[in-house]
């Protein structure tokens, strides 16, 4: 199983591809910065949130059962990585 830092690097590249963010490289993304919100971090919106949920389901085969937890899981790249590590099967 990958370490948290390795998974964060993978996720950054996957987010850039899934959301077609052309102007950023993985190095430009702060793993602890918020992903959503006006003028904050990547400045993503609700459609992007669905794309990120799909990314987790497709790439890591983890289904997010409770939609209310999405806000916490998708708070930052690090939060996504922690959730994946906690829920990924060996």
């Amino acid at each position: 199983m990958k370490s948290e830092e390795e998974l964060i690097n993978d996720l950054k590249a996957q987010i850039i591809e899934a959301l077609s963010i052309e102007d950023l490289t993985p190095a430009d993304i702060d793993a602890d910065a918020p992903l959503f919100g006006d003028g904050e971090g990547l400045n993503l919106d609700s459609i992007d949130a669905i794309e990120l949920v799909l990314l987790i389901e497709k790439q890591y085969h983890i289904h997010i059962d409770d939609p209310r937890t999405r806000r916490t899981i998708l708070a930052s790249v690090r939060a996504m990585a922690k959730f994946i590590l906690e829920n990924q099967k060996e």
Partner: protein
Amino acid sequence: MKAYINAHGIISPQHTFDGAFFENGPEEYNQPQMHCIEPDYKEFINPAKLRRMSRILKMGLGAASLCVQRGTQPDAIILGTGFGCLADLEKFQYAMKAENEQLLSPTPFVNSSHNMISSQIAIALGCNGYNMTHFHAALSFENTVQDAMMLIAEDEVQNVLVGGIDEITEQLFSITDKLNIWRKDNYNNMNLFNGTHRGTLMGEGAAFFILGSKPTDGHSAQIIGTHTFIDSNTDIIGEATDFLATLNLTLADIDTMILGRNGDAENDCVYDALENCTQANIVHYKHLCGEYRTSSAFAMWLGANILQRQQIPQCTIKRQSRKNSYSNILIYNHLNSTEHAFTVLSK
């Protein structure tokens, strides 16, 4: 019923976006598809929005933005398209099959509806007025123009943004190629009309116009009428004569005809009768933009430029018999000898 063309913006397989086409001449292609030469969209579209847009949305918003920059904020937006946002529709449908209808990305689905382009333009321009998309195969653009002219005639609006837009996709090409409508050889677009061949070149484009009830200083032409009909056994000369009569014109008043010949022998013979019944200048355009459902929007752009510049681009002339001045242009295009459209532009 008439409308003034007060501004235009166009993205096509030629250098039309920046006007370089008129200085540098046509772009040459040696393949069965003619793709648009696209500008740097970041100059026209918010980069944050750009990343989620498909190519046809970028083309539409780019051409519409240029048109509005040159003209004025419209009161209404009307668009014509033959196939709409086809690339995203294909992407969405492939994903449905591949993912067994599970875990589908929302972006291609949101972007796949026909009216997405006019909606995005309305949001970008902050235009809350009448918003309509016509998709009537090869008559889509003319119906769009007719809709705009009726709105203007009824004093509903002063300025309307109208456009014709379609995109090439590999899937559309491979499906329609089974109908043998695309060239298998002799791909060179500048030799499209040389010799007798089967098939034509696939094209695409986005052409937008600000139509106004009154002319502005920069206006290029006025549209005085359009006429569409669906019939496979029509007497084209009779139909044109009757249509022109409703505008108090005769075929002799038309100094230039822009015809939708596409290099396919079977398709092109439909134009022969009209071409041979007058001494008007004959202009072609599909070697510049290829064949697509709303290619007559490219023809309108060309016609508006001829009237404004009082000059016909050399590369479009098939026959030039009247050189002094250009006042009345008849655009005629058909699809499969069945869907026919006339438009008359005047100075």
